[in-house]
């Protein structure tokens, strides 16, 4: 008897576990996602960038007018005259940093949302506040839907979405490729529009990729032979060229498989068509009702005996 129930118990654990196990198994055998090269994006060439930060200023201007960004105060500037952010934040969507290895070897780098082909932030947002435009591929944020759970921050491998920690009515802040501002009005992102040296090229992913490869071919000694974003995290629409290893510039080494693909596959296997939960529920109901009946019978019996004694 004892052994039997033990076996039953293990079986139960097995049943609940089996669905999850198959999930883990299929998830490892991913086929890779289909990359849409018609989407729009930007190509940032770090070797051309002169660090003037015109893109940062333009980004703040258009988005400030739009009402979604405030200016940042530099720590050394009590009067608040100088907007000098040191990192992306709840009021800065893009940032130019300088990486200096030695006096002769240095590089600028621009940070902003990578507009992933398969964005983790969209995959995890529980209320669809992060969305990816089907045609343009722009990853946009809607503060009127967002619940502020910050799961998008946890999920993004590039650490891009930022949260307004100091506000009582906070929101998530990240580049939206000027979707609602400059892109709508002028058909080009503000940062790309103002760049004086053409370090930011705006266009369709396929053209940008081609352009990047041409540059690599024509100047092999100038660049690291790699287009950052071509395959990282399943491919991004924001592409990079640079003369220094990308991880030194603060761009993380990321495998070609999109993290969202891995997690969604497991999640889908468990919840496919809601079959597993419904099956689990009905099986458990069946067992429990049967057990109740069995128990009630013996219990009634006990009770009668018990009542008899009392009387």
């Amino acid at each position, binding site marked *: 008897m004892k052994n039997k*129930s*033990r076996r*039953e118990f*293990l079986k*139960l*654990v097995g049943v*609940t*576990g089996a669905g*999850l*196990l198959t*999930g*883990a198994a299929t998830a490892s055998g991913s086929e890779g996602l289909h990359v849409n090269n018609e989407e729009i994006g930007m190509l940032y060439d770090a070797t051309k960038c002169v660090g003037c930060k015109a893109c940062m200023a333009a980004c703040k201007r258009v988005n400030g007018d739009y009402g979604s960004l405030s200016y940042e105060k530099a720590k050394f500037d009590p009067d608040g005259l100088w907007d000098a952010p040191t990192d*992306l*934040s709840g009021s800065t969507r893009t940032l130019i940093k300088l990486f200096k290895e030695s006096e002769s070897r240095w590089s600028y780098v621009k940070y902003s949302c990578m507009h992933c082909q398969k964005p983790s932030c969209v*995959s*995890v947002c*529980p*209320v*669809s*506040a992060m969305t990816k435009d089907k045609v343009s591929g722009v990853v946009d944020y809607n503060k009127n*839907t*967002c*619940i*502020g*759970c*910050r*799961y998008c*921050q*946890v*999920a993004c*491998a590039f650490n891009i979405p930022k*949260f*307004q*920690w*100091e*506000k*009582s009515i*906070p*929101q998530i802040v990240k580049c939206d490729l000027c979707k609602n501002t400059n892109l709508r009005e002028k058909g080009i992102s503000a940062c790309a529009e103002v760049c004086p040296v053409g370090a930011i090229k705006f266009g369709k992913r396929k053209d940008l990729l081609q352009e990047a490869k041409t540059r690599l071919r024509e100047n092999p000694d100038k660049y690291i032979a790699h287009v950052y974003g071509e395959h990282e995290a399943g491919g991004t629409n924001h592409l990079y060229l640079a003369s220094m290893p990308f991880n030194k510039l603060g761009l*993380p080494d990321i495998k070609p498989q999109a*993290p*969202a693909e*891995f*997690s*969604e596959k*497991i*999640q*889908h296997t*468990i*919840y496919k068509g809601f079959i597993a*939960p419904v099956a*689990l*529920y009905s099986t*458990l*109901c069946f*067992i*429990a009702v049967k*057990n*109740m009946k069995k*128990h009630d019978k013996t219990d009634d019996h006990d009770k009668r005996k018990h009542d008899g004694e009392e009387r």
Partner: protein
Amino acid sequence: MGHNDEYQKLEGKIFTKSFFILLFVVLVGFFFVGVRYVKGIGAVSNMSDGYPWGIWITYDVATGTAIACGGYAVAILVYIRNRMQYHPLIRSAILTSMFGYGLAGFSVMVDLGRPWNAYNFFIPSKWQANSAMFEVALCVMAYSTVLIIEFLPAILTTIETTKWERIHKIGEWLHPRIAPDAQNMANRLEWVKVGAAWLKPRLNKVLIFFIVLGITLPTMHQSSLGSLLLIASTKLHPLWHTGFLPLLFLINCVFIGYAIAILESIISCYSFKRPFEVEELAGLAGLIPWVTVIWLSVVVGDLVNRGQMGAALKLDFYSGFFLTEFLLVGIGSTILFSRKNRRSPRWLFVSAAMIVLGGALYRFNVYLIGFNPGKGWRYFPSFAEIMITVGIVALEILGYKVFVKIFPVLPNAAKHGGPNRHDGKTAPIAAGSMEFGK
């Protein structure tokens, strides 16, 4: 389920000294909650863009709900494995779950940056089935409702039998005029009682379907709590990032659930001076090692499979936390393999505590300690953050202590104790002690 004499109220004063101490802690916590709403989350917490989730999510939600899985684990035992002899434990387990989940929900509302938008969870066009968090949120909300329904019989019993003296007295104490005149009130209360008496048998008939729902929902969302971190493949340390996260979280909450049911019973028996429920606890304790063995083997098997055994034994920061978690669970359940230990309240307490700690540390490892967003980010909870969490835990204990005195929750010692329980060492239930306003 219809065995209401299985349970009894705990007689005793509600407003004890510990009540006021707990109340004070709760108020401190709520003060900081107030600050958070006025000045923003950044003003009270050390969370950052690198560590967007702090102890509110890690402890209150991810760990707290596992600790609140006593109701879940005991329900599996009673209704699915058909071990009705554990039935007496279930109400207090459900009560703990109710508070645990309710307050996890509360701390989510503290943690969310834009809680006023939470209604989007109920708008189908906003649903995002890819999100593990969406699944967690819906299941947790549903489960909290189910827990309340599961607890209803205890409340209905009280309504049916109560004389409402206390409420009447409180009214009189506040102001004589507020208190309705006795006859009028008795009439009206009669209706409430009749209603309760009408509802109870009907509820009892369908209750089993809610109970089973109360087993299905935690199975779903506890595994999804593990799924939440699946996507953080670049941030979570490989010791913990695996496709088995959902399965590991599911098994983890089952053994935490049994261990916490043991702890809770021992602690409440000790502090309310009731006889220990050794029979039931020994049985529960016998189950734990079987569950933990599965968990430990999945952990090891998976590490070997992914070639991470080296990382586990490296004895650096991460491996240290991994080994601590692993050994706490391992040693805790080894103790329970011995039949003798399973009958000793002391060993039961020690091993159950180790298992709860180890199981909880696992969740901390996944959510915080093994989480590394990159260079330059650091997180350690701020004082205010900790106080909010402590306040919430205090509210849980407070609520539990009050509820067991108002509603029949604890096993009826006279019925289940049997003669061997009253061995003279434990005082019989303090009968006739003062109750507020009686």
